[in-house]
């Protein structure tokens, strides 16, 4: 059984297909057709809803609302949460300030993306008291509109902060306590199960009982198997509600990132040590994806075009893995075996990502190159870490994504740099060595020639930026 709030009212569900997305549930089981299916892959945002979640930690009574793609969020993940949809946002037929501003500024044309855009902007409007253009763009990073050209939507978002508050389902729903639970929350049919354990002890027990289960965290990739390939999983175990796996902590010179912590949770925390990484994370997926997607998921998924692995390789991260057999620590560079193959054993999961805190002389340079700035998959992702000792390069790690079947270091290029003086000549040698490190593929995102040329030019760019102490590019960051 799972229990959740839907537009302010408690709902209990038990015998529902564990593969059911929130969107399919809303549209086919609840008759709530305001949220639209535009792509069923988390790319267009027409299905955006807000999910209210109690902050983790003892006795915390604060609730935060996040925009998510309901098409790739499974209903099983909703236990204890509040789903707010466009259909139930308003009370007494009063339109929300965002809706009023959208009407006034001609923010809708065909109207199909509009409910999702409204929910994204409501998420922004309800979480802060003023906003910048950058905030608006971030909140719209996962919403596509094909009609308006966005200008009136951006204007509406800004203007909504000048429209007086009124009562809506978000600001009138009081904080709630966790639903009482005798057994692990979940959905069950004769064919399939979904479990949401809340502790590692429960997780271990379930893994023993269901050794073939698929582990799911944010599900921003796994759910595509369901929504795009019409696959049906017979046992899913969620990692998202396990406190130990979502913790962020530090000890001495080491940072520990819970593998099931979402990007949105990790980013404000990580900023203290690695602001460059947080800037790069701002370009991973969209806000909706970052609100569900996890760092651990991006690693376990082992895509050669994921952005997080090269970054973590550059930072020399390790992984703490756990299973019923116990725990082990593995350097990230040893984790990836071949295309989509990793060291993870059956029933084993990533528990934490272990990061060294940066040395005082550390230089981190991260570059993501893609056709589109927001919510795109990299053609090339380059992550560089350098420690200079005087003019000499003491430590260097050059990691790339999109250049090979796995995220990996440019070993030949690193060899040219380590111990060398940091000069145009040594960098030029490393640049040409990249040709020995990589023979990238041509695909829909880029040609082999472009990938290699860009990888080389990014190393040149890093050198120019470091040597001249400047930022070189057309975007303000990453």
């Amino acid at each position, binding site marked *: 059984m799972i229990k959740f709030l839907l537009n302010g009212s408690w709902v209990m569900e038990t015998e529902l297909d564990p593969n059911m997305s929130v969107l399919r549930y809303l549209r086919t089981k609840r008759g709530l057709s305001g949220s639209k299916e535009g*792509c069923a892959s988390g790319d267009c945002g027409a299905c955006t809803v807000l999910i209210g979640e109690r902050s983790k930690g003892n006795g915390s009574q604060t609730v935060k609302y996040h925009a998510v793609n309901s098409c790739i969020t499974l209903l099983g993940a909703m236990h204890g949460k509040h789903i707010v949809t*466009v*259909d139930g946002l308003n009370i007494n037929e009063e339109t929300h300030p965002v809706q009023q501003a959208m009407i006034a500024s001609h923010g809708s044309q065909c109207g199909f993306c509009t409910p999702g855009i409204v929910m994204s902007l409501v998420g922004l409007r309800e979480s802060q008291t003023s906003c910048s253009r950058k905030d608006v763009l971030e909140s719209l990073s996962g919403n596509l509109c094909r009609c308006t*050209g966005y200008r009136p939507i951006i204007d509406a978002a800004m203007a909504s902060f000048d429209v007086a508050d009124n009562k809506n389902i978000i600001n009138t729903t009081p904080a709630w306590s966790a639903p009482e639970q005798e057994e692990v929350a979940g959905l069950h049919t004769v064919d399939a199960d979904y479990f949401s354990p809340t502790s590692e002890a429960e997780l271990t027990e379930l893994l023993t009982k269901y050794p073939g289960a698929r582990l799911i965290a944010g599900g921003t990739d796994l759910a595509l198997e369901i929504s795009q390939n019409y696959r049906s999983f017979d046992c899913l175990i969620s990692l998202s509600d396990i406190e130990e796996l979502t913790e962020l902590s530090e000890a001495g010179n080491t940072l520990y990132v819970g593998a099931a912590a979402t990007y949105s949770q990790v980013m404000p925390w990580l900023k203290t040590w690695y602001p460059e990484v947080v800037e790069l994370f701002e370009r991973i997926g969209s806000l909706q994806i970052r609100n569900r997607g996890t760092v651990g998921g991006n690693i376990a998924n082992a895509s050669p075009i994921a952005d997080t692995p090269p970054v973590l390789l550059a930072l020399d991260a390790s992984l703490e893995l756990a299973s019923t057999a116990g725990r082990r620590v593995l350097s990230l560079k040893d984790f990836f075996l071949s295309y989509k193959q990793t060291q993870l054993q059956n029933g084993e999961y990533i528990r934490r990502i272990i990061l060294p805190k940066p040395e005082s002389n550390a230089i981190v340079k991260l570059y993501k190159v893609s056709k589109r700035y*927001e919510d795109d998959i990299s053609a090339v992702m380059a992550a560089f870490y350098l420690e200079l000792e005087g003019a000499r390069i003491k430590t260097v790690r050059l990691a790339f994504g999109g250049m090979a079947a796995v995220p990996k270091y440019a070993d030949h290029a690193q060899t040219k740099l380590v111990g060398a003086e940091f000069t145009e000549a040594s960098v030029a040698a490393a640049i040409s060595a990249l040709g020995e490190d990589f023979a990238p593929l041509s695909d829909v995102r880029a040609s082999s020639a472009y990938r290699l040329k860009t990888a080389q030019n990014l190393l040149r760019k890093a050198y120019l930026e470091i040597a001249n102490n400047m930022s070189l590019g057309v975007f303000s960051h990453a």
Partner: protein
Amino acid sequence: MRKLTAVPDTSEHSPEGIAGQSVPHDSATKHVTGRAEYIDDIAELPGTLHIAVGGSAHAHAKIKHLNLDAVKSSPGVVCVVTSEDIPGRRIIGPVFHDELLLAYDEIEYVGQPVFAVAAESFEQAQRAVKLALIEYEILTPLLDVKLAREQESYVLPEHVMQRGNASAAMSSARHKVHGELVVRGQEHFYLEGQVCYVTPTEDGVHVLSSSQHPAEVQKMVAETLALPLNKVHAEVRRMGGGFGGKETQAAHLACVASIFVNKLRRPAKYRLSRRDDMVVTGKRHDFVNEYEIAFDDQGKIEGTVMSLLGMCGFSVDLSQGIIDRAMFHADNAYFLNHAKVSGYYCKTHTVSNTAFRGFGGPQGMITIEAAMDDIARYLQIDPLTVRKRNLYTAERDETHYGQKIEQHNIAEIIAELENTSDYWRRREAITAFNASNQYIKKGLALTPVKFGISFTSKHLNQAGALVNVYTDGTININHGGTEMGQGLYTKVAQIVASEFQVDLNAVMVTSTRTDKIPNTSPTAASSGTDLNGKAAQVACGKIKAEMQAFAKRYFNLADQAIEFANNQVIMGENSMSFAEFVQLAYMNRVSLSSTGFYKTPTIHYDRETGKGKPFFYFANGAAAAEVTIDTLTGEYRVTRVDILHDVGRSLSPGIDIGQIEGGFVQGMGWVTSEELLWNSSGEVISNSPANYKIPTAFDIPEIFNVNLYQQDCPVDTVYASKAVGEPPLMLGISVWCALRDACASVADYRISPDLTVPATPEQVLFAVEQAKMFKEKDSGQAL
């Protein structure tokens, strides 16, 4: 009725929301609250079936054997059909009958439907279609337009438009440039995918379709089912975006679904998943265009030779009109002088390409814009100067297809935009910036648009409307146009409110239905308001004439006309509210309902000679775009855009601005991040929003100034307005020219490097490399 409704309080006040005023879209409140109903939102009737089709895995093949046993026994499957189960026409098509609804012998593109499944749920239908066993004899696919021309693989024969003697002009020219431009297609990416919901009726079927052309849906379903047209009705309330992608493509779904409805007497919904939509529906045509331009020392064109090779796909669909329109717009706003423009309708083993906002116009226009830049680099003068020198004038006013250009306001539009965008000062600043920055470069371009308004198929330029006035003074309108977000319903309602001088909230447009307005044209060619607005105006005129005749009788008026003003009807000394007057008319048995019909005058085109006057008028505009590029990666940002666009006298400024901005951004997407790609086996590899990238909010320029150039349309259009749907898309070409300008700066503006459309970061980097190589070689020679 026995007793009339109470007359609402309509005191005398000037009417709110009439033509010329800015009003919200008529569904705006429904849009933002999620209450606007799209087809997939409609509550399903019990027993509703869900349809999916099984398609070919190959681009070109013969089906040797088809085994559907596993499909039939898949859970939830109710019925499976192939071509043999079609009761009527098995070969369909909007203009030519050349498409198999379900293929049975030769396969001509990847994903071509071979059989269809009806199942109890969407997922069950999707799972079932994957289970077919199809044996193929694989044939070589033809995927390239130049190869198609070599092999003379065409869906229609070559077409030529010419003026004067182009080859003589070429041989006597002092200066010439030539080039080849690869222009890729574009995926519509309407947010609502293709969908229809078909229900059985006593006599036939009722089709709810997300279509820009309900009359064609009606016709093709009737043909598929071998039913007369009066037993099939199609209805469209709104689409979640169309952009041309639902002009012909929606009919296929309705035909397939109708086979099941007809056979099983159960309702059926057929909705394409996004991925299927991106694979099996037509897109904007890819083109490869060759051009050779002769010009004088001033850069004035003396001769033009152009070949436009359009990738039509496996069938004609609308390709005749589309390649024709590319040819009609090969001049954009410029006098081509002695010109020969040839169009090739290349047949390839790909999905049949279709209408997309601009309908070939953009692909023709961007080619002459590329040539303008080439001339400018050749002569070392600013591209804007070359453009201005080549604009049509009263003396140089004849197009290559014989139509005289009568309105010459583009020079004025450009002049105003040069001023408001501060073009020349920014040009200097950018040139200076580029001279002192090695890695980051800026580009600027100001390009005009001249777009011909009218369907080039003459008979489509007609429309009907039905206006009903009710006894509470409210008005209902139906017309033949469909609402896809462009605000057509809003504008027509504003026109009707203006005709009666009543508040807009008394007027409502309801869904477009073939049983209310028959034999309609597609809502396309930017013509929706021009045609349907006029038809509604005509209907209003007839009702007003009835009212006039009645008032004259009843109030014993002499010859003076009654007047509609301030929500009142004024008859000499007397006046009453519009609703009171309507009640009085009703009690005196006056008709309060009328149809209206309109056809566009004066247009004609003779395809035999390639001469005529295909366009009633032209919509004009110009855009100035500035970009910044990173020469190390090819990444770029569009930093500022200024637009001035001619909508005649605007019917609804808020909606017109929305069309201009939205069109521009869609055009910008086409020339920047939207890269439609096929692999060597003929599969679309940009087949999802994860790998086909339309612009996001981040991509639009932070400085984005859009203004209306308000000047009455010189011909008789509704309230002197101009069409606005398609033309602004081509303002996006300015972004491509600005990117090319930035790339050219790497070679000190001495060449225009090749730049494929779209100019993705990859293409920009390659253009930069080309410019670098030119410069190195050039300076090497200089030493």
